[in-house]
């Protein structure tokens, strides 16, 4: 009798702790049922190629959110990253790797500037990154005169080619692995989460809080720039309109993955799942030929449902 009861509680716990995976699984099954085109090699490959960029951005966003901050500038930094690489390659004939590294460095610096204001002037992350969002977008338009920069075949688009093993998918996977490791196994990951729980206590424990705070924004900016390059590679153009609204998708992915916007809670793997939830929603609606405007409405509803479930399970976790 007691055994059975205990088993029941354990099962409940298991469901609660893994609710993000369960949401994804259910969604996956629904997708399979709704469309015979869903579970095909081509479609799955498309999803993977599409998601390389949003996943990178979401991982960077997660680290910012863990500290209790938010980074609204990622979408604009994506655009700038795409434009910088494209301009350097197309107009100055530079090597692809130079372009990529320059763009990532640029993202790192811009993110670092946001982080500087957050850490050293106590500006709110929302405000500091809002300003950076505007500036980075402006810079992207200035750099390109508002005209997308075309890239020739066989240059940046090698990053999405099968012959090379879909480099952007590999790269995104590596980033997820790396940050999963950082969060789980390094003191850096530990301190980032601790910061979001109580930064005063962390500072009094002898940790130089400001450096860590600055660094998460720099990481977020760097990953955003990389994500912009992924998009440029897929479309073979560096467009200043890339990444519009991507910051919101990234935040959504974190939240569906159980992150708390107040900081201190969230994991890399669950954020990845959160990004996949968003991806599947978009993908299945495209396959079902749902027009784009209703798509947004449906997407919004599903996000609310997912987050509600998240909150609901959190509540029952407290009373267990």
């Amino acid at each position, binding site marked *: 009798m007691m055994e059975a009861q205990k088993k029941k509680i354990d099962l409940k716990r298991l469901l609660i702790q893994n609710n993000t995976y369960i949401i994804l699984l259910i969604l996956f099954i629904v997708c399979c049922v709704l469309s015979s085109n869903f579970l095909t090699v081509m479609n799955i490959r498309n999803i993977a190629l599409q998601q390389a960029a949003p996943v990178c951005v979401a991982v960077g966003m997660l680290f910012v959110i863990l500290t209790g901050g938010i980074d609204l500038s990622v979408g604009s930094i994506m655009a700038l990253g795409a434009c910088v690489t494209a301009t350097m390659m197309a107009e100055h004939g530079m090597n692809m790797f130079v372009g990529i590294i320059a763009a990532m460095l640029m993202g790192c610096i811009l993110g670092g500037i946001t982080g500087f204001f957050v850490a050293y002037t106590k500006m709110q992350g929302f405000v500091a990154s809002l300003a950076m969002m505007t500036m980075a977008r402006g810079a992207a338009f200035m750099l390109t005169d508002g005209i997308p920069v075309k890239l020739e075949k066989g240059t940046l688009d090698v990053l999405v080619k099968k012959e090379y093993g879909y480099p952007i998918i590999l790269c995104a996977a590596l980033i997820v692995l790396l940050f999963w490791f950082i969060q789980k196994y390094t003191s850096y990951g530990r301190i980032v989460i601790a910061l979001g729980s109580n930064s005063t206590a962390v500072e*009094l*424990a*002898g940790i*130089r809080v400001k450096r860590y705070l600055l660094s998460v924004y720099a990481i977020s900016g760097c990953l955003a720039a990389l994500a912009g390059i992924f998009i440029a590679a897929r479309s073979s153009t560096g467009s200043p309109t890339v990444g519009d609204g991507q910051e919101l998708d990234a935040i959504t992915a974190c939240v569906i993955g159980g992150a708390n916007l107040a900081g201190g809670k969230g994991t890399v793997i669950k954020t990845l799942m959160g990004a996949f939830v968003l991806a599947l929603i978009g993908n299945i609606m495209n396959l079902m030929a749902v027009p784009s405007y209703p798509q947004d409405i449906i997407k919004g509803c599903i996000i609310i449902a997912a987050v509600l479930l998240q909150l609901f399970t959190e509540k029952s976790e407290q009373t267990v």
Partner: protein
Amino acid sequence: MENEYRLEMKGISKSFGGVKALTDVDLCVKKGEVHALIGENGAGKSTLMKILSGAYQKDAGEIRIDGEQVKIEVPKDAKDLGVAVIYQEFMLAPDLTVAENIFIDRLSQGRLINWKQLNKNAEEELVKLGFGDIKPTTPVRNLSVAYQQVVEICKCLKRNAKILVLDEPTAVLTFAEIEKLFQIIERLKEQGTSIIYISHRLEEIFRLSQHITVLKDGTFVDTVATDTIDKQKLVNMMVGRDMTQMFPKRSARIKDVVLEVKNLSAGSMVKNVSFQVSAGEVLGFSGLVGSGRTETMRAIFGIDRKEKGEIIYFGEHIDFKDPKEAIQHGFGLLPEDRKQQGLLLEQSIRVNATLTILNKITNKFGVINHAKEKKYVQELLKKISTKYGSTEDNANSLSGGNQQKIALAKWIAADCKCVVFDEPTRGVDVGAKTEIYRIINQLAEKGVAVIMISSEMNEVIGMCDRVIIMRQGEITGELKQHELAEQNLIKYAMGVE
């Protein structure tokens, strides 16, 4: 026949999951009396009050108010029956005015508000409590903590509360403010309100209450009339053992001077402070709340900026520019407010315990050795005899005393040579207090120089080798162990000759 009791709670039981929080507890409160409810942290006081206020549902037992059996299923039921609870964290909207807060329920009725009338009513309520000097139009944010408490009480009373529960109301107040609170309590008592008073401070309980109910480990120990019992007996009832060992003996040898501070000034709270502390010594810092003790230590620790003065640490002139540098030199500080500054409440016990020693459990790439960490944490928790379920439980799942021990553990782990404990036993029950004293003694015996800031005089007297008293940012006196007595401490703290 008129019923003698305002509130009768009989045979109350409550469990959470498999854990019994309350077993067959009784609490009977007469009309117009102050009834103290005491017990160690985790004894079940809060659970009992949450059942009374409708936040929790009882599993068994009955509640009668004025002799009539009542059902309290949701907080609103309790309110309608005239039960009001004042928690330690106030339920006030800081940017609204005093009047708006008091009549916050009126604001939600959707009709136009007659501000003049509202302010007038608020003033009447405040005058009734004897606080006519609080302006109804002041934003609550601008009031002192004590006045905020008055507003909170006012808000509850205007619903004609018959039973008022005060949960540790004096924890955040200064001496003068406590006096004001006591005046209110006396006045309410005369008006016939029954007051349930929860506090760890026995002096207050003896001063205010007519009856005392003691809980221990979720069970009912006894209800006694206050004038038939003394402190010692009461403490014995609470802990179920003799508390002559409240302050355990220490066999530390005082050795060389570790820290010497000369003419330190910082901000308006630290003026020309000089003192020294030696290895193996427990140096007390006494004084009133706001006398500059915490600020002095913050300046030394590198949190606040120093204006002038010298700090000599192990014979060297130093100037810690931030806490990290202080800790690298083996200088630790346990902040006074464990919830705001000391602990990561939402993180696990393990994460909390190793926060100061991350560099000891990581390799040179910053990768944490989880096995080493686990071992470390278990050894540490054993040392401080903390009760916990699993090291993965969140810190806020622990009782106040055990939380404080975890916060302390960080500094034991960090292997400090000089540690400041700022109010280490605030809001901690008697049993946990003794264990914290024992931990402090162990540190001193190991040769650590300990500085203990405390506002509890008996604690300073029982624990310290030497005590420095501060008042308004200056050191007003220094007492050796044989000179330690409450009168002396008060004399210097209040500045009376």
